[in-house]
């Protein structure tokens, strides 16, 4: 601290000589401001500084009396006050009154972060009669009192610096006026699992045209692979198919299956999205009609499937059932439309022949691109299983009778590969003892598995235990667990019920599994931590409740929409508690598991939240854009056009104006990133709210420092 004081005095001396140099810059700044905004008043800056205690959050870590006394000495400061909670109604009233009583031209609040309360104080500034963009925040909480809690002197000095810098900017702020742009009355939902379907149904019910883009051949997602659903045990298909049918029938939903998002341009209210319709090789009846083929297009008869000679594993059945190169996943698909897997099709043409006059099959089909305009978008790209064979100790893909939870769902499902008979893959025998390995790959800090809890595996393992007891008399499920997380409504009661039905719970994470090479039975090794005894239990079948991870194409898709993700790849919400459906990209929202593991009730709730949030800008009809765009000072622009290529948002163009070539900004496209402003060699680009003179003044205020 002592050292700092010394340099401070030295700097103050140099400041005296420097003032002259700085002053012209400031004046030029004002001229430019005038040129750019045309509405700045010439009057001398009068800044009000309002210091917040935030209870003891700030006041407890620094000497606010000293900070306040110091603020009074800063040039251009006309008024200083403090309040216990500046964001409260009385706190805001202090600002309002001071603006009027002291004819303030700018407002600085020294408090928390702009992310938290900038909107609050902008409103307060506006209510006091000033343009809201004449407000500047000095963060003395997150970046100061909270991190320097035990350094009273240091944090007091730092708060003085922060306020001096904010005042320097506030003195040069100008009036800005946000632009309102119209919002396209259409939305897009990416991913048609239960989340995407619910969001699309809600949006369309609210009268909004919705494009639903699904990468698979059918909608439905993971839920259509499930047999029953906890805790009520309704049949998954029975509750899902009505929704799928509704989606298929709703005139306001335009469905793009076997498709993906290829390119996204624009911003909230006006996203231009290019959809890639992957070559499917089969046309729908509607497409048939459009091509003038009377009664043509695929009617789902399945004749082609009968003749196709190529056999492949069916992914929907987790590879446990065959399919042809031309196929549908299961009988309830929506749309009922066949698809050719061109990676395995040998183009023999047999399907084309049998399809005959319907002319539904086109072996030369190519990818098609469709461009649509939407106001808002929801990502609902769901999840996939973590490749659990990476945890080699449990023997998945090595021992035949070790399966995953999703494979169990298909095996126990009446429409699955075994007609609902749970059997051992090794010999088709009905198991008598089934082990369930919970937290398989979840809650794992080794770097191989996932550090998080996958959230629905406890509950579905309980469900699986129930299904076994119900379907196979005399078969006992053993659940190897660390904790049973039955947190939802009626979940703990479900746990009670399954234990009562006879499931055995062993508190111990499975150390490893060994296979008896003769019987293919499995020895599950762990520690019964409650007995404090190592155990070796022989099971006929073992089900791994594998961890889940974001679906494969999530990362590419999220980047197109400018959405961030957390370290483990789940898409990042705007705020984990207060804005779980929003993202930091205005107009883009999240639904379902793509944001983090969720069971169906939570997925549907999140989808309805996202749909509601996504419909708000559309119903309002217009959105305000932050007026932080670049402007070209035509007299200074040499028309070199170098900035045009630098802009990442294609917001700039060269135009003819008064016989000269100059740059012009499309304000709605500009995101205010400053790339062009920082670059322009002639200083012809003025970045509103982050203008060069404003920033230079802040830097000067920091470097010159000291008592003013």
């Amino acid at each position, binding site marked *: 601290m002592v050292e700092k004081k010394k340099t401070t005095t030295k700097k103050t001396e140099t400041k005296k000589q420097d003032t002259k140099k700085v002053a012209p810059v400031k004046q030029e700044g004002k001229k430019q401001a005038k040129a750019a905004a045309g509405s700045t008043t010439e009057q001398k800056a009068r800044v009000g500084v309002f210091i917040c205690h935030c209870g003891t959050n700030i006041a407890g870590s620094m000497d606010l009396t000293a900070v306040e006394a110091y603020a009074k000495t800063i040039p251009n400061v006309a008024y200083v006050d403090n309040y216990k909670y500046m964001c409260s109604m009385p706190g805001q009233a202090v600002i309002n009154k001071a603006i009027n009583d002291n004819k303030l031209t700018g407002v600085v609040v020294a408090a928390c972060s702009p992310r938290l309360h900038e909107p609050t104080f902008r409103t307060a500034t506006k209510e006091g009669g000033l343009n809201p963009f004449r407000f500047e925040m000095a963060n003395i909480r997150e970046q100061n009192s909270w991190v320097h809690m035990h350094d009273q002197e240091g944090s007091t000095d730092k708060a003085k610096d922060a306020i001096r810098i904010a005042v320097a900017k506030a003195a040069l702020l100008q009036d800005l006026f946000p632009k309102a742009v119209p919002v396209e009355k259409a939305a897009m939902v990416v991913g048609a699992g239960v989340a995407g379907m619910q969001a699309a149904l809600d949006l369309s019910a609210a009268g909004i045209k919705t494009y639903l883009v699904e990468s698979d051949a059918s909608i439905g997602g993971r839920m259509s692979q499930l047999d029953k659903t906890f805790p009520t045990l309704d049949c998954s298909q029975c509750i899902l198919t009505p929704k799928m049918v509704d989606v298929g029938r709703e005139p306001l939903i335009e469905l793009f299956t076997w498709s993906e998002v290829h390119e996204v341009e624009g911003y909230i209210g006006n996203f231009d999205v290019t959809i890639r319709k992957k070559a499917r090789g089969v046309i729908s009846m509607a497409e048939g009609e459009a091509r003038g083929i009377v009664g043509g297009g695929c009617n789902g008869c399945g004749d082609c499937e009968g003749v196709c000679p190529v056999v492949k594993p069916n992914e929907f059945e987790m590879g446990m059932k065959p399919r042809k190169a031309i196929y549908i996943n299961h009988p309830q698909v929506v749309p009922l439309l066949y698809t050719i897997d061109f990676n395995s099709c040998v183009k023999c043409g047999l399907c084309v022949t049998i399809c005959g006059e319907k002319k539904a099959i086109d072996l030369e089909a190519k990818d098609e691109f469709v461009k649509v305009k939407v106001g808002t978008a929801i990502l609902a790209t769901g999840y996939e299983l973590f490749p659990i064979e990476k945890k080699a*100790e449990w023997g998945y893909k090595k021992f035949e009778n070790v399966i995953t939870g999703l494979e169990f769902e298909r095996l126990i499902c009446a429409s699955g590969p075994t007609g609902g008979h749970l059997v051992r893959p090794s010999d088709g025998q009905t198991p008598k003892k089934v082990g369930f390995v919970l937290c398989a790959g979840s809650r*794992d800090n080794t770097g191989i598995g996932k550090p998080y809890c996958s959230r629905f595996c406890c509950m579905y393992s309980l469900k699986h235990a129930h299904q076994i007891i119900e379907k196979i008399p005399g078969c006992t499920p053993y659940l190897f667990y660390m904790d049973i997380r039955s947190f939802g409504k009626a979940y703990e009661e479900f746990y009670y019920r399954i234990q009562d039905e006879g499931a055995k719970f062993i508190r111990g994470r499975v*150390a*490893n599994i060994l296979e008896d090479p003769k019987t293919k039975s499995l020895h599950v*090794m*762990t*520690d019964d931590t409650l007995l*404090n005894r*190592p155990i070796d239990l022989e099971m006929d079948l073992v089900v791994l409740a594998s961890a889940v991870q974001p679906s494969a194409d999530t990362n590419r898709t999220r980047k197109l929409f400018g959405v961030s993700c957390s370290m483990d790849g789940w898409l990042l919400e705007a705020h984990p508690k207060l804005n779980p459906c929003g993202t930091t990209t205005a107009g883009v929202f999240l639904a379902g598991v793509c944001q983090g593991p969720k069971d169906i009730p939570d997925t549907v709730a999140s989808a309805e939240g996202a749909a509601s949030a996504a419909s708000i800008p559309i119903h309002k009809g217009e959105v305000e854009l932050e007026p932080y765009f670049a402007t070209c000072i035509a007299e200074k622009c040499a028309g070199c056009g170098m900035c045009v290529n630098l802009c990442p948002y294609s917001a700039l163009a060269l135009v003819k104006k008064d016989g000269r070539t100059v740059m012009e900004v499309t304000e709605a496209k500009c995101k205010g990133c400053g790339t062009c402003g920082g670059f322009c060699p002639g200083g012809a680009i003025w970045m509103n709210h982050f203008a060069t003179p404003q920033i230079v003044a802040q830097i000067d205020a920091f470097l010159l420092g000291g008592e003013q």
Partner: protein
Amino acid sequence: MARTKGYPAALDKKLQDTKFYLDDSNPEFTKNVKAISRTTAHMCYQCGTCTGSCPSAPRSSYRIRLFMRRAVLGLENEALTDPDLWLCTTCYSCADRCPRDIIPTDVIMSMRNLAFKRDIIPVNFLKTVQAIYSSGHGVPNNDVNRAAREKLGLTRDPPTTHMYPEYIKGIQKILDHYKLKANADRIVKEREG
């Protein structure tokens, strides 16, 4: 004795107060174990993977997970005076599989270090020290091994201090630096006279 009124003496032990009281735990112990083992010993969530992996557990009363619990709670005396502490084979199976990425083996090693500071150590471990001091090997070569090595086409002695006894001096210097040999001799003498 009077309390048991003719019941076997073992009952006396069974009637002891075995509650865990706050002053049983020494937070410094948790810190020391972490510092010596250089692993996150305080992060164990008691899943049982280690005991489930441990080749010693099914053959003895040794439970690595119990020692991990003692590390977390700072139960110093309980950990250091339990003779099971010396039943780990240092195979590192638990370390391979611990989902919290802890190295339980190194936790055991750190506890053995701390126990040794209090002269708590089985004599056979001290005899190993003496063997290393005199031969450079904890388990010196013998004729059976030599014959087996010959059969495999190897030299009768491995290229260690067995083949180059002149390096034993170096090993002795290291052991002397840590006073390991002196302490071993002292304790063996105290125990065996």
